[in-house]
């Protein structure tokens, strides 16, 4: 078992996924038709033997509260462990003050009461596989004060906008954490994942609050980078981050690639847990035609589906053609509809014969409960 508790952080202030985020926080987004994004960090933590997990939430907590419940589906012993939602109860009107440091500060009593010595902070809006127990061991062995997880990318001009990147020296020391402005392709994208002693977090929160009420954890680490031993740890394997609408759309479709899917899900001892809805299997009718797609249970397919992700309980009627799209749960696509490059939110109803086609690099969005 791991001598650390964990904090799963909500998306940052300046990242928004247009449309989708009006209804739920990013960590509660549906993913691959069956998961929610929060399943990835929580499964990673549970598989790493971390059984005290605090999920911070800022707005619209309902979907997350129902999904997480008491953690049993994530294989967490509900007596010994604890999966809890923490609300930023002091959130203020002026959004610039709502920093991660503010959330820690408003829950500092709970942080102090944790019996573990270390804390792992990891985001609810990134998709990757990571053994945090190994990461903690590495952190302890290295003698560093703070270990930051990063992923090397070569497409940072086009992607990962608004996230931060690390500059590291040859000894893996972190020189700076800066926003990715998109001027260079090769970057070490910071995965917003920290390992440190609980006491150091408490100290940093106090310092940050003293320095400025707008300071976040990154600001104080940058400020303290001379006095602290901050090291980077390179993550390998599949990685995606959801920081805007397009990144959400692309992360879904990207995992139709069986090799990538295997890299993320194929490890036998590393299940990605989620909540079942007890849907029945998919029923394909005679006139259906489906290729290169992932279809969640409960769906009924009469039409054509290509390169798409179909959520739970979706009905696609005959003559309808779905291409390169992500359809969230319980939507109904009537006869002869054509959808290309779309994200259709839950419970939507697309009426007979509609043709909704968007360019591949600017996918469209249909709102929840909408009838079109």
């Amino acid at each position, binding site marked *: 078992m791991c001598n650390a508790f964990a904090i799963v952080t909500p998306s940052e202030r300046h990242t928004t996924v247009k449309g989708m985020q009006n209804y739920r926080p990013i960590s509660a987004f549906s993913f691959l038709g069956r998961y929610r994004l929060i399943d990835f960090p929580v499964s990673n933590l549970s598989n790493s033997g971390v059984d005290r997990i605090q999920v911070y939430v800022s707005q619209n907590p309902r979907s997350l509260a129902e999904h997480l419940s008491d953690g049993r589906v994530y294989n967490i012993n509900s007596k010994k462990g604890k999966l809890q939602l923490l609300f930023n109860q002091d959130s203020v009107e002026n959004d610039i003050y709502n920093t991660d440091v503010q959330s820690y500060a408003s829950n500092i009593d709970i942080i102090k009461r944790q019996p573990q010595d270390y804390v792992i902070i990891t985001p609810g809006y990134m998709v990757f596989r990571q053994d945090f127990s190994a990461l903690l061991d590495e952190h302890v062995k290295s003698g560093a004060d703070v270990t930051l997880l990063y992923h090397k990318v070569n497409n940072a001009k086009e992607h990962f906008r608004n996230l931060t990147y690390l500059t590291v020296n040859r000894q893996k020391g972190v020189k700076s954490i800066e926003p990715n402005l998109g001027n260079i392709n090769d970057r070490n994208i910071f995965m917003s994942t920290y390992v440190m002693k609980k006491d150091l977090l408490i100290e940093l929160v106090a310092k940050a609050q003293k320095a400025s009420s707008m300071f976040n954890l990154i600001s104080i680490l940058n400020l303290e980078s001379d006095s602290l031993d901050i090291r980077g740890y390179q993550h390998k394997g599949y990685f995606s981050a959801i920081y805007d609408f397009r990144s959400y759309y692309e992360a879904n479709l990207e995992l139709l690639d069986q090799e990538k899917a295997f890299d993320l899900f194929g490890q036998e001892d590393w299940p990605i847990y989620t909540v079942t809805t007890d849907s029945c299997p998919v029923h394909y009718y005679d006139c259906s035609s489906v290729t290169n797609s*992932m279809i969640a249970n409960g769906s009924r397919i009469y039409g054509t589906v290509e390169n798409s992700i*179909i959520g739970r309980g979706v009905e696609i009627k005959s003559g309808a053609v779905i291409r390169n799209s992500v359809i969230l749960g319980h939507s109904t696509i009537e006869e002869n509809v054509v959808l290309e490059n779309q994200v259709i939110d839950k419970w939507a109803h697309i009426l007979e014969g509609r043709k909704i086609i968007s360019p591949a690099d600017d996918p469209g969005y249909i709102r929840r409960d909408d009838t079109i």
Partner: protein
Amino acid sequence: MKHNEMLAMILAGGRGSRLKDLTSKVAKPAVSFGGKYRIVDFPLSNCANSGIGIVGVLTQYESVLLNRYVSDSGNWGLDSRDSGVFVLSPREKAEEGLDVYRGTADAISQNIDFIDSYDPDYVLVLSGDHIYKMNYDKMLDFHKEHNADATIAVIGVPMKEASRFGIMNTDGNGNIVEFEEKPEHPKSNLASMGIYIFSWKTMRKYLVADMKNDQSSHDFGKDIIPAMLGDGKTLVAYQFKGYWKDVGTIDSLWEANMDLLDSKNALNLSDPSWIIYSEDAVELPQYIGKDAKIHTAYITQGCRVFGDVNRSVLFTNSMVMEKACVTSTVLMDGAVVGEGAKVTRALLAPGVHIGKGAVVGDADSEHILLVSKDVPAKGDK
């Protein structure tokens, strides 16, 4: 502990030997069905949806997997404070030795102390081998309205097949006047579904008497029901209309799976008001490959299809490789059909692999082919 008006006892101890290799290591109620279910999910989900909280599952034969499976009572929401699914195997008692269950009635008799510990008014006795959806709460209302000592669910079967069933002969008021096991010349087409509601106090007396009776075969149909009829107790028939199937043979198990492909199938597993709950597999949604062709199929999560699938049912984690062709077939959990192989009118046992290019089954066969061992690739042996 809240008072339990009715608790359910599921008879799950049968060997199910007509299912051949499928039940050589797995008790029949734990056999997979319909992509993601096991047979016992049906009575258990029916109980949950009918508001029954306490369910005893009477097992004895090869029941490791079944015991593990039903112990996970949360699958059916039966893990709330005063609910539970309890595995009841034969136990040693203070005054007696250990004994197998000698018959359906004896299985209940040996667990009188379990039932007494909940002090129920009624006991529902179910079989663990049937596929159907039924609201037992409505059957209980019927039982109470008729002031019955026992209520037996019956279903109309074609008259010419009636001699294969236990037949209930009723008077004009629905009272059972006679029970005939597989009558040569049936007088009615009302077949017993093996679903009984008993008023516990009455039932208890008959069970205690039956236990002491050396002549008895300790069976509900053969001993308890006739004894109650003989004593003039009130036994009524509750007529069920809907889908009901005994999946006792390979052919009938295959047929019940094929029934799911019919969009008008009365079982309707997608009805949100009566969900059949099951264990959740930690698997990705199914992936349908770039060159796959699917025509009429029932496929569950964890499956991967790269070839052709026609009128078939694919269970969790089964796979159809490139250029393979699967027709009128059931692939049970983890079965794999290799590249270019052809499988027709077959039922593949869990985990069976069909080698590359192999040809299995026959479109014109009378019976369904059960494949329970790996089939080597064409050319290998």
